[in-house]
């Protein structure tokens, strides 16, 4: 029941927004829809904690602690962004950005309809990724997230946004076709299982119980293809090049969703295959590959952050860095690494979405996303945004006492404990590089002297959502609610395979 309701809510929201004629109706549809979605996600998490797993339709839909955590994070971010988007898009409408960049003569309301319809559809496909038991269906849902978000990237219709969308569609398309190939090969590896029938042949919950009997040679090839495919979607180096373009061209609330919830989805798909592969071949083979890609992604982010001129692209490189961190944690494996991964995913989702929203405030007020043109003064013009921006940035670069310090510390510790000394050392080095670069640029922008800038007007929707998320960020640094911590522990147990 709960799963059906969860699946229906975004679809109804999208339909309501599509058929609405007035902006207010679309806004209300999105706000109400995502609020309901969030409550249902909390209820699902509660049910999973109580019952272990929830499944529906003969196991076609299947949610364990890992899925429930992903859904909870997705729901939280989408509710936050729905509230923020109201203020953000109204401001865009006021300044006439939506009208003047009109290629095909549609009015601003058509753009708004596109945004308010595609966002619930994007959330729906992300939900589908996490509840689909069949790995092939999961692939189709991941592809659907790409398709739903490509058009969001072209929202402003600028030349550069078309370029970003094209790069995203092509790299995403090629990447996901590799992932599909990997899925086909995995299906082949499972095909020879005794008693596997055509329908359940790709069901994860079935495969994971027979992982030891899967054809080893095929699983090896499947994992390589899957890693390249979903890795491109997660923005691992060297398939990361679409990320800075897309995150700096998409509307800010969409960029916030894509850099947190959608990244989680791509990693989720990778994690499901990692669990299968490590049970089939042992954790060394997938672990080594993941560590290589993780280190490469972390390393490649450093120079780009250090010389970055544009703060939204800087945030994108930081996301590449963090997807590298998470893949590294997955590669280290064990309960400690997996716990670090799950904690990091949660904390990163909170902090990075907050950062993008702050960047959106600055962008709308100053009308540029280049450091050199802002020259400081954010603190004077918009003190609230300035404070939250700096705080969230400190959190993201791993400054104690914020939460990401704890998860990164846990991951480094796991690296040393399990003998990956080189990984641990590089992790700290790259982390220091990103820390220096990001802090240097952003603190200059926020605290710098700056010129004469008008104070920002009241922004109730945008600042309200900012403050709400900032409170969450501060609180989880010191205290995680018991049930959430339990959910994170169980999700980590699913990843490391210490449960039944």
């Amino acid at each position, binding site marked *: 029941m709960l799963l059906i309701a969860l699946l229906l809510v975004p679809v109804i929201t999208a339909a309501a927004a599509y058929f609405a004629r007035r902006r207010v109706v679309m806004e209300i549809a999105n706000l109400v829809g995502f609020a309901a979605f969030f409550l249902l996600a909390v209820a699902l998490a509660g049910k999973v904690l109580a019952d272990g797993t929830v499944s529906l339709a003969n196991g076609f839909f299947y949610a364990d602690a890992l899925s429930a955590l992903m859904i909870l994070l997705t729901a939280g971010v989408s509710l936050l962004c729905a509230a923020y988007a109201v203020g953000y898009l109204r401001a865009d409408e006021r300044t006439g950005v939506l009208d003047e960049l009109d290629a095909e003569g549609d009015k601003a309301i058509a753009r708004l309809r596109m945004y308010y319809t595609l966002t619930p559809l994007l959330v729906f496909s992300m939900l589908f990724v996490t509840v689909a038991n069949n790995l092939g269906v999961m692939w189709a849902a991941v592809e659907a997230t790409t398709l739903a978000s490509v058009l969001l990237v072209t929202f402003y219709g600028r030349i550069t946004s078309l370029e970003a969308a094209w790069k995203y569609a092509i790299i995403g*398309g090629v990447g996901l076709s590799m992932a599909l190939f990997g899925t086909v090969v995995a299906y082949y590896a499972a095909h020879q299982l005794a008693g596997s029938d055509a329908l359940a042949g790709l069901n994860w919950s079935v495969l994971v119980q027979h992982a030891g009997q899967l054809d080893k040679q095929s699983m090896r090839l499947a994992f390589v293809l899957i890693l390249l495919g979903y890795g491109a979607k997660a923005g691992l180096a060297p398939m990361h090049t679409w990320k800075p373009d897309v995150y700096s061209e998409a509307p800010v609330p969409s960029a916030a969703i894509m850099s947190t919830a959608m990244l989680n989805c791509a990693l989720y798909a990778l994690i499901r295959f990692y669990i299968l592969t490590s049970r089939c071949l042992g954790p060394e083979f997938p672990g080594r590959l993941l560590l290589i890609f993780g280190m490469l992604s972390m390393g490649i982010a450093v120079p780009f952050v250090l010389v970055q001129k544009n703060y939204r692209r800087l945030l994108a490189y930081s996301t590449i860095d963090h997807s590298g961190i998470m893949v590294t944690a997955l590669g280290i494996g064990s309960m400690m690494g997996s716990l670090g991964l799950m904690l990091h995913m949660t904390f990163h989702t909170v902090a990075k979405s907050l950062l993008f929203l702050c960047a959106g405030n600055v962008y709308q007020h100053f009308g540029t996303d280049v450091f050199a043109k802002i020259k400081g003064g954010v603190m004077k013009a918009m003190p609230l945004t300035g404070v939250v921006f700096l705080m969230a940035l400190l959190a993201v670069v791993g400054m104690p006492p914020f939460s990401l310090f704890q998860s990164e510390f846990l991951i480094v510790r796991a690296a040393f404990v399990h003998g990956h000394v080189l990984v641990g050392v590089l992790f700290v080095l790259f982390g220091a590089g990103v820390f220096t670069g990001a802090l240097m640029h952003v603190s200059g922008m926020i605290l710098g002297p700056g010129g004469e800038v008008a104070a920002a007007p009241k922004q109730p929707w945008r600042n309200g959502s900012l403050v709400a998320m900032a409170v969450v960020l501060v609180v989880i640094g010191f205290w995680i609610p018991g049930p959430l911590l339990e959910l994170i522990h169980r999700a980590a147990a699913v990843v490391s395979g210490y449960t039944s």
Partner: protein
Amino acid sequence: MRHLLDLQLGDRIITLMAALVLVLQIAMVAQRRIVAHIRIFAAQSALLAAIAATIAWFNHAPHVYIVAVLTLVVKVVLVPILFKRLVERIKISDEIEPIVNVPLSVVISGGLTLLGYVVAESFYRPDEATSPTGLGHNALAVAISLFLIGFFTMINRRKALSQVLALLSLENGLFLAAISLTYGMPLIVELGVFFDVLVAAMVLSILVYRIRETFESMDVSLLRRLRG
């Protein structure tokens, strides 16, 4: 009737058709006009539908018939119509300009086909009688070659629409791989994949249209403003 159930005959028919699919893929590499490119894609997809139907017949797997029909509807009818209308709307019939010239491209495609056979060998286990690769062992090699050649074609093309066509022919390779390795994926997965192919074709053609409108060209090498 008995010879119609003979697996060896089925294998030969499939091998023949897979070879034709490969020929069409190489023809696509050599083709310079975009409308012809679309026609070749439709013909290739029609052959894939025929392969699916043949496999369904010889292995008594009725759900593969549905896959064959879906291939006909989506890839032979809908997607080519969509692209032909797009070509008419943006009024282009100009030549595709490959980066590597045609003779060299064909030679490279030949090399990639060889590579496809080498990779496919690792899946071939003649000792396992139950293995579905008994039927269509060549088809898998062709599938991997299609994948690699499609990949190469994408890199080799500057025009947005021909990149999309290359991406779709790459997906045709995956389809062939799925069907020759395991008689196709479970039906629900195939449905999802077809839905995605259709939506992807629509989304990409919207993008191509807008790129054309904005740049007065489909040359994606002009898309180079975002850096660093």
